[in-house]
């Protein structure tokens, strides 16, 4: 049984708002960049970048981060996960980085992403933007920018669909089988 948490328009509005909030919070910041966490975080990051280009005519540097190598649960997985490329074509030193992911849950992915970025250098600041914060954190990590906040039960599944990958934009809730 599925329930729509955010429909197409709602997703669009959330991304718009997040974009404006990023610009507002980092007013005047010359060293601002975006890093999308694989996989759907990348599409969100690209959209945010494109919107910023529209609004301020600035092209922010964009990076793509695969956190598989930094996961804390590698030993417990049944089979090794596929490792994909990380491509960060800019220097992270002294940079304000906005990490972008689709869902924030336990916080472990964010922790891994932070460690991955730290191994590349010393950024000035790291901020976190997520489309959905579904609560039930296991680490002390909070987003700076949130699309929607919804405390999902553990057995509930929060699925983000984006048109680049899934054909349409929506956020769905369903009970896991």
């Amino acid at each position, binding site marked *: 049984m599925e329930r729509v948490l955010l429909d197409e328009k709602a997703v669009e509005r959330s991304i718009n708002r997040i974009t404006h909030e990023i610009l507002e919070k980092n007013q005047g910041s010359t060293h601002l960049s975006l890093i999308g966490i694989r996989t759907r975080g990348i599409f969100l990051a690209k959209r945010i970048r494109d919107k910023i280009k529209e609004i301020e005519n600035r092209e922010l540097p964009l990076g793509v981060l*695969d956190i*598989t*190598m*930094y*996961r804390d649960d*590698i*030993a*417990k*997985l*049944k*089979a*090794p*996960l*596929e*490792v*994909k*490329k*990380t491509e960060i074509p800019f220097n992270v030193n002294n940079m304000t980085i906005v990490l972008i992911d689709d869902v924030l849950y336990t916080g472990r992915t964010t922790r891994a992403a932070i*460690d*991955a970025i730290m*191994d*590349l*250098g010393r950024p000035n600041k790291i901020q976190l933007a997520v489309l959905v914060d579904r609560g039930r954190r296991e680490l002390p990590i909070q987003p700076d920018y949130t699309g929607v906040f919804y405390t999902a039960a553990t057995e509930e599944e929060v699925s983000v669909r984006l048109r680049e990958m899934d054909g349409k934009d929506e956020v769905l809730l369903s009970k896991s089988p």
Partner: protein
Amino acid sequence: MNWTHKDLLGIRELSREEILYLLDTADSFRDISRRAIKKVPTLRGKTVVTFFYEPSTRTRISFEIAAKRLSADTINISASSSSTVKGETLKDTARNLEAMRPDVIIMRHSMPGAPFMLSRILDSSVINAGDGSHEHPTQALLDLFTMKERKETLDGLRIAIVGDIVHSRVARSNIFALRKFDTEVTCCAPPTMIPPGLEALGVKVTHSLEEAVANKDVIMMLRIQKERGGASTIPSIREYASFYCLNESHLRRAKRDVIVMHPGPMNRGVEISDQVADGPYSVILNQVENGVAVRMAVLYLLSGGEV
């Protein structure tokens, strides 16, 4: 795809898809070696033991660096320093090792089948770093990685493998691997260095170096395996070199963007001339760099997850 192998004993057992998956994974790991902090925490807390019955510097160091870059702990054992000297059998040495619970054992041995034997008795993952004349799978993987990197795809390639084929595990592994792709492989050596019936593996055989290199995308040169009896199959190194040493004039017969490979260590002037070894077509040093990335990928896939 799902990686299901506990060990890497040979490349013959891998499918084409598995090889490509490994190479893709290696691609992601290569970047680690090129940045300031050459480490990821992926295999933190894992123990990797290199167990080398046969001497080797470059392969052992390559594995050690790969393991360390994944944050694993490494321990090196060589036969002379182990209790083999005291008459302990391989099986007992392995059992004793296992009691210390290593996650991965990387073994090099002078006898074919030794890593296979180890994998049957141990729970740890076993990587074959070369067993006699049988296989050297990570070498073939890094060779394929190097070819793919320069040539975009492995299908359609024409490769020449030249040298002491009968004693060469590098040749065998490369032949097994390349034949899983749409390639044309030509082996070249004097008849005494070609095992009878080699064509049954799907390769061409020629005894002329000029013919072998004609129109090739890749030329792989191999060393005479003196330690496996290679020297007794030819009257002298000098004569061998006069007929089978790759030099610049040979390269003119190959394709214009040919790449020259060698697993190392090289015997300059024997199988490869100085000019070619150091020339623009040589990718020998790339092979070494890629070796670390490929071995990181192998270590990750074998020990990442409770396989």
